[in-house]
């Protein structure tokens, strides 16, 4: 098979990347391992999606459907139940229902999303019993299959999926006994803390973690304790709580195993404002690049990657000198890290703060000159910030800071 652009992953970012690449005139093949498009949105049956991108409140499947309909109305080739085994320069190998398929292409957009951090990765101590699951697995269990993980749950971690699942379990009649968060604050959205936890009076204990999972064959309870400033449990504060399942919401990790090793040396895959990696012709967007708070943001990023992958495949992209994006210690990361010095137009820098700030400015500097400033009433670690910058103001490397 031959095409211009192959998009791997049919979630919001992959669908929007496909649509944008097609809009440029490129022939597009969209591949997904599941039997329908939508990615993880299909199991997110709660609302709160689409406010930014579609200007209306949607559930996950509704959001996915809006994009999927457009994909099916176009002449994008969709390969479902197909697993991409390997990607190389201008080549994608996939296992499809019809066997091994070799797809030659001119650009690849990787939109494979993220996976959940597991009990092993956080060294959760105790026995490996039935009843310890990641929050997303339980979401699938309940929303796809109508099954429950137990009757009395505790949740470790207060990421968005954990908060959403606290509400979901409660609505399904499962008692959520407590949520433990090792940090002093939640990494989830403020609206989720209000709507999923506070409204249901679920105890959320900050600076606490699970020290031991106990039981014979299934989970029968956990020991938990307060942690000190180094996040080590204080033994004297250890207590027991009875429960029959433990949900983990302890972070998402980009599932970028398909990327060539050379692109993965840093904490984040290095991309430019077109979302192209250091390997020419390989673009990347959505949660596989960095974890987004909103499907809307992943969708927007897919549009960027898809557009430039399309142009690249059609030999319509231009080369520019690149500048780097540096940032202060108040910021944990900025995306993208490289900017093409284009003549006109605008681009957006996405960033995540290291701490919570009240009434501050996000500032982008070029040398001593402020080239963009944005006032923010509240900046939290849980919510991604964004700031628009004009290309024509770039004279050299950029520095992003949070200041007055």
């Amino acid at each position, binding site marked *: 098979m031959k095409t211009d652009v192959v998009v791997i992953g049919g979630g919001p970012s992959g669908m929007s990347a496909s649509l944008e690449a097609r809009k440029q005139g490129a022939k597009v093949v969209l591949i997904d391992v599941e039997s329908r498009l939508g990615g993880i949105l299909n199991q997110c049956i709660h609302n709160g999606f689409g406010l930014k991108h579609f200007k209306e409140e949607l559930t996950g499947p509704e959001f996915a459907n809006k994009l999927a309909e457009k994909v099916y109305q176009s002449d994008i080739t969709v390969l479902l139940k197909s697993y991409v085994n390997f990607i190389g320069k201008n080549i994608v190998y996939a296992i499809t229902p019809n066997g091994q398929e070799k797809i030659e292409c001119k650009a690849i957009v990787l939109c494979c999303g993220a*996976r959940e951090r*597991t009990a092993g990765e956080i*060294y959760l101590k105790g*026995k490996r019993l039935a009843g310890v*699951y990641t929050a997303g*697995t339980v979401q699938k269990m309940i929303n796809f299959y*109508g*099954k429950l993980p137990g009757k009395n749950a505790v949740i470790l971690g207060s990421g968005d999926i954990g908060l959403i699942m606290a509400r979901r379990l409660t609505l399904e009649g499962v008692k959520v006994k407590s949520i433990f968060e090792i940090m002093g604050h939640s990494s989830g959205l403020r609206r989720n803390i209000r709507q999923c936890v506070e409204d249901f009076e679920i105890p959320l204990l900050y600076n606490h973690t699970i020290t031991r999972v106990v039981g014979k064959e299934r989970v029968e309870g956990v020991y938990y304790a307060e942690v000190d400033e180094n996040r080590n449990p204080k033994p004297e504060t250890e207590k027991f709580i009875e429960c029959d399942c433990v949900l983990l919401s302890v972070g998402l990790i980009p599932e970028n195993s398909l990327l060539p090793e050379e692109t993965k040396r840093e904490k984040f895959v290095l991309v430019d404002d077109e979302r192209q990696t250091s390997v020419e012709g390989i673009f990347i967007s959505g949660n596989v690049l960095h974890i987004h708070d909103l499907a809307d943001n992943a969708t927007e990023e897919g549009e960027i990657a898809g557009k430039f992958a399309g142009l690249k495949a059609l030999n319509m992209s231009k080369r520019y000198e690149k500048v780097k994006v540096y940032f202060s210690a108040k910021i944990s990361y900025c995306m993208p890290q490289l900017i093409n010095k284009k003549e006109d137009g605008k681009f957006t820098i996405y960033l995540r703060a290291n701490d919570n700030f009240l009434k501050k400015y996000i500032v982008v500097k070029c040398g001593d000159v402020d080239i963009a400033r944005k006032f923010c009433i509240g900046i939290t670690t849980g919510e991604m910030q964004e700031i628009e910058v004009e290309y024509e103001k770039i004279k050299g490397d950029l520095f992003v800071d949070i200041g007055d």
Partner: protein
Amino acid sequence: MVFDYAVIGGGIVGTSIFNKIIRKGKSCVLIERELDLSTGSTKANSGLIHAGFDAKTGSLKARFNVRGNDLVEDLAKQLKIPFKRTGAVVVGNDIEKLNALYERGINNGVKDLKIVSTEELRMLVPNLSEDIKYGLYAKTAGLISPYMFAIALAEEGVKNGGVVKLDFNINKFTFSDGIFTMCGEDDEVACKKVVNCAGAGFNEVSKLLNVEEFPIKFRRGEYIVIDKSDFVKLSVFPLPTALGKGILATPTIDGNILLGPTAEDIDDYDTETTNNGIDKILSYIKSTFKNVPLNKNIRQFSGIRVSVGDDFIVKKSDKNENVVLIAGINSPGLTSAPAIAEYVVEELFCEKNKDINLIPRDSYFQGDSGRIVCRCEKIGENEIIRALNSPVPCYTVDAVKRRVRAGMGRCQGGQCMIEVCKLIAKRYGLKLEDVKKESKNSFVMFNGGTYEN
């Protein structure tokens, strides 16, 4: 029917003996109380085929280890399971101790042993810390999947007329007119000769058989599993101590890295992982290696080594000559198992005729893999279905995991566990909420609304 032999305990020793008896053309039944084979020590060890320099010369351990190491290669080939001689190296600065170990190895009959220089050691283990100078290199050491080894031995046995009974908890033994009758909850088995290799359950079985019991001790070993990496390409041991071979860093046959085990004497059979254990592994590994890929840590587990004194017990019962007792099989038990089986069947039971040719078992991985279910390990639906239809029943999520590795990867089943449950449910005509993780009451999920299990 009256079986010629009954083997009690479906670990690596039991499955090896079961297989060997079938090779002698005798009838045999393998009894296991859990829902799958290899759920005790066999599933939770380093997966090493040891060279044999460590055990005391003249001991059963030394004898069976060296012989077992010889036997494994052909056996693995026949069983169509991967085995690789990757080698092992004991590292340290105490050259005298290394020399003593070398001498012991030579006395035990170990081939291809040598003391390596600092430069050679760097080549063998590039990530070893700079201040470690010498090594004892054993070329014949290798890697195997311990649970897959046991399962494949049993599958081949069943394919050739043997019987495996899982979920068979023996309540009672009777012995009359040279025939043993074992009663389970709703099943009875009769046989002429019995092997007790029930591992941690040895004494319970011996009591029912009215034969010798031994003071069995439990020693827990914790491990850290790292996702696929080339951090070490062979097994790296510290110098051994009284507690065992020490914490090692080794690749597994599937490409993961194992760090561990610790060695802690405990009172009850308890497979918890602990703060102390994990900290011990981390501090030792960090002090001995550089570039440890701890960011790819995916799991921890602990296994129990049973022991009765320093050596293995492999002998006929003094109280009933139709019973063979096998106890205290700890390291190098996995390596020794084929040699123990050979000794038990040929020497103790005097089955001296030549092995018959067996119909080979089918690999799960021959043929089209189908739709990929486990994305991390790239395991297809057809491969899981072949495992579910293999000669030894495969009832649980962990049983599937051991056979095809679905759920062994970096997401630890987060993506595929429910799909695996669906395939199990379909195979056995169960509801999703009836599917178990490992043991009888380890239900994965419950029906929405009514939670009555």
